């Protein structure tokens, strides 16, 4: 994708508060019970109808959304998921589908391929059943997920594999890269494990230690620039919350980013345009600047690479202007990763000499 044009689009969305990327949770139900999940799958909310979901998509298009992610829970527990997805594509949206792939059949894979999503992203936590099934708490999850990925690939769908850098996953990284190579998919790790949307802190028990995160981030296939970015300027905007991103829940509640826990309105009760136009929460978040942050965030030298999350600061520490300690840990892990020697990846780098 043209980085320059995409960057320009993203910058414009940030400045003009266009919800360029939307996360639409069609269901809170899931057939897995992942230990780190941000949803309470034991108590899923009710779900809007197909017609209402299509109406939400239309309103997002009108508001300027270009990248739409349909997710759950498990997206394909809703039989109408592809009806909504197809409508989104007809309206021109670049579509991502998040699924655990356990319910993918040959027929469903072909239907997905016809819709032409930008990508179908599947979480895989290990290269073998023991760890993956332990994380998902389902004995057949790994086999079913792998089968789903293979069916999607055979149908010609762009599939990506992803995993959070949970404590149990870190030891699996090399094998996960190998698995992704065999499947012909990209593999992405997300170092940020967030609390539950309802404020529950269960997922944070599965966060990795900083030293282990550093080793993971130093992996040859994750290692980025040798220099960490400089701190932001005082008048910079801290993050995309309330500006470029939006989340819609299965009940139509609208949130100013994928993690922020407080609803700013309900799209089934009032038009999205009216909700997004502003209000006490949105206005406060949109006016936030780096200079407004306090506590350890004020003047912090790690501000350019901590990935500070306003929503996590609020959920975990009750102060959206203060530090999100997970961001501080991530910054420390990034610093430590730079000090670690570069070690050859066992597969991609085989035959090459290790550095350091």
């Amino acid at each position, binding site marked *: 994708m*043209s980085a320059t044009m995409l960057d320009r689009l993203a910058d414009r969305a940030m400045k003009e508060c*266009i919800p360029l990327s939307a996360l639409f949770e069609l269901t809170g139900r899931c057939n897995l019970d992942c230990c780190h999940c941000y949803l309470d799958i034991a108590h899923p909310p009710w779900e809007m109808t197909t017609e209402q979901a299509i109406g939400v998509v239309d309103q997002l298009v009108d508001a*300027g959304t270009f990248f739409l992610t349909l997710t759950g829970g498990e997206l394909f527990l809703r039989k109408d998921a592809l009806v909504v997805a197809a409508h989104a594509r007809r309206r021109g949206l670049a579509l991502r589908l998040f699924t655990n792939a356990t319910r993918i059949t040959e027929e469903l894979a072909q239907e997905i391929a*016809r819709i*032409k999503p*930008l990508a179908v992203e599947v979480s895989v936590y290990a290269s073998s059943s023991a760890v993956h099934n332990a994380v998902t708490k389902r004995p057949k999850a790994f086999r079913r997920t792998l089968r789903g990925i293979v069916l999607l690939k055979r149908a010609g769908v762009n599939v990506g594999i992803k995993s959070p850098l949970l404590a149990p996953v870190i030891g699996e990284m090399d094998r996960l890269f190998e698995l992704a190579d065999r499947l012909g998919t990209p593999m992405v790790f997300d170092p940020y494990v967030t609390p539950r949307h309802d404020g529950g802190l269960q997922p944070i028990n599965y966060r990795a230690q900083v030293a282990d995160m550093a080793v993971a981030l130093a992996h040859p296939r994750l290692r980025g620039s040798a220099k960490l970015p400089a701190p932001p300027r005082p008048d910079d905007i801290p993050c995309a919350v309330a500006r470029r991103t939006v989340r819609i829940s299965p009940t139509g509640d609208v949130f100013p980013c994928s993690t922020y826990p407080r609803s700013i309105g309900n799209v089934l009760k009032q038009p999205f345009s009216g909700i997004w136009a502003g209000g006490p929460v949105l206005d406060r978040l949109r006016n936030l600047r780096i200079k407004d942050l306090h506590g350890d965030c004020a003047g912090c030298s790690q501000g350019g690479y901590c990935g500070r999350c306003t929503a996590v600061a609020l959920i975990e520490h009750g102060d959206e202007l203060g530090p999100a300690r997970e961001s501080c840990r991530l910054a420390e892990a990034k610093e430590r990763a730079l000090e670690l020697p570069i070690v050859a990846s066992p597969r991609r780098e085989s035959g090459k000499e290790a550095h350091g």
Partner: protein
Amino acid sequence: MAELMIRGDQVPERSPSMAWQTIHGETVLLQIDGKKLMGLNEVGACVWDLADGTLSIGEIIHIVAAKFQTPSEEAVAVDVQTFVGELIALGALVWREAGENQQSGIR
């Protein structure tokens, strides 16, 4: 010269491999497969909007000429045909066959 090969009765439609959005007057196209992003000017965006599989090239030229109040429809015809030819070559637009039903996965 793409425009020489395009007849006025041909009907272009947006390829199912494309995503697009118009944000505050700026239209962007994204090729799903190649992940290529491109921007359109105002006239290009108008043609893209009209290329919904229901209008012929001749009809699109007529509408564009009227909308932009151009003195010569012939000049517009060359521009539209060239532009459509380029988008066909990129795979962003496809020709709808005569009597074809909308059969792709998203139509």
